[in-house]
């Protein structure tokens, strides 16, 4: 399949990428391209320009400290999954990265790209929201709770570029997903974390945008056990319904994945 024509531009720095973005209102940033290029091939997206930021070494790093893991936006899923620092400090995050797509996709796809795209069934938004991470851009810092607005929609403005995401280290966390067997996207994925500010439960794949489940958070704050979630149901109203599963099925899956995540939390 062939995309609509576009102009390819390789940015030499974040500042250069920002200048290029300002010069072409219909441009898009190209990171790993594992979603964007597929969308362009289906002719669902037709940017005038692609500004390639995937080779910017200034955006590719993993910095771990005693209270947080900070990951550059152009860091690939493969690098996150295999980082000894992340495996040690936030194993749930390394695990999440290790089950995105397939090995070839993980070699190209990036954290920043996934978060900026905010696909309703992407994995990373669940970790960002579940761990109460902070998204840093070339302009400002945005809390996870303020970042994900709706389907494929975020708080980012047109000329904003994600530079890094800071994940606070939780006491315990776990991610369980029920993948679509063909695409490996989440039919329902639940990230549960015991953080310094309380228990957080973030759900991806089930609705139009990643969301938290306050009832589960409250129950787990009282007793962090799978049993504490018994009897808590998810309203299927507004959840995704497609050939892969109905909204009711996804609502049920959220409960199952949540209980599995609590049971497996490390």
């Amino acid at each position, binding site marked *: *399949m*062939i*995309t*609509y*024509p*576009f*102009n*390819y531009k*390789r940015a030499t720095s974040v500042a250069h990428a920002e200048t290029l973005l300002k010069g072409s209102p219909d441009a898009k940033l*190209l990171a790993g*391209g*594992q979603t964007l*290029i*597929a969308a362009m*091939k*289906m002719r669902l997206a037709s940017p005038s320009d*692609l500004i*390639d930021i*995937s080779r910017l070494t200034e955006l590719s790093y993993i910095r771990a400290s005693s209270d947080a893991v900070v990951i550059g936006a152009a860091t690939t899923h*493969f690098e996150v999954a295999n980082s000894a620092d992340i495996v040690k400090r936030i194993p749930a995050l390394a695990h999440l990265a290790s089950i995105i*797509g*397939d*090995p*070839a*996709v993980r*070699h*190209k796809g990036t954290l920043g790209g996934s978060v900026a795209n905010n696909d309703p069934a992407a994995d990373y938004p669940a970790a960002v929201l579940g761990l109460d991470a902070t998204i840093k851009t070339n302009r400002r810092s945005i809390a996870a709770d303020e970042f994900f607005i709706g389907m494929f929609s975020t708080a980012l403005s047109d000329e904003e570029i994600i530079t890094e995401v800071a994940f606070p280290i939780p006491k315990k966390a776990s991610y369980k997903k029920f993948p679509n067997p*063909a*695409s*490996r996207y989440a039919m329902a994925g639940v990230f549960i974390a015991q953080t310094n500010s309380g228990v957080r439960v973030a759900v991806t794949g089930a609705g139009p945008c990643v969301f938290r489940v306050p009832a589960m958070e409250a129950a787990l704050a009282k007793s962090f056990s799978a049993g504490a979630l018994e009897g808590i149901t998810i309203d299927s109203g507004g959840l995704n319904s497609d050939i892969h599963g109905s909204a009711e099925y996804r609502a049920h899956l959220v409960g199952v994945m949540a209980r599995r995540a609590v049971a497996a939390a490390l």
Partner: protein
Amino acid sequence: MAVVSMTVNGKAVSAEAEDRTLLVYFLREQLRLTGTHIGCDTSQCGACVVHVDGKAVKSCSMFAVQAEGAHVTTIEGLAKDGKLHPVQEAFRDNHGLQCGFCTPGMIMTAVDMIRRKPNLDRETIRHELEGNICRCTGYHNIVSSIEDAAKRMSGATR
């Protein structure tokens, strides 16, 4: 159209390509390296897997211009001096293919996985093959081929 230059199978190559030319078309149509196949063309099947700077990627999901200056290895680049790569030999010996359409991608994926994980068990191989689809074999002999190749490459006897 711009000229795109990269190193493919150890050889410096340059060819004209539109910015929107996918790497797989560049390899097949500009360079006439037709061993890399286009299966689904939607990043699911893995028939188009090649190595770019040492990592397995789907060449249908990357533009040629993104590989400017990169080192690319295709299925044509595996055999050396007329001798098949151990993974190719293992696929032949274990009947790891039937129609053969998915085989180039399977082998490029296998070479990459063995390099990353020399001690492969069958479960890991199946997990690592999640991005490669075969409609003939049922995967059993593909898994056996990769298991055998990993053993050969680690120097162990079969």
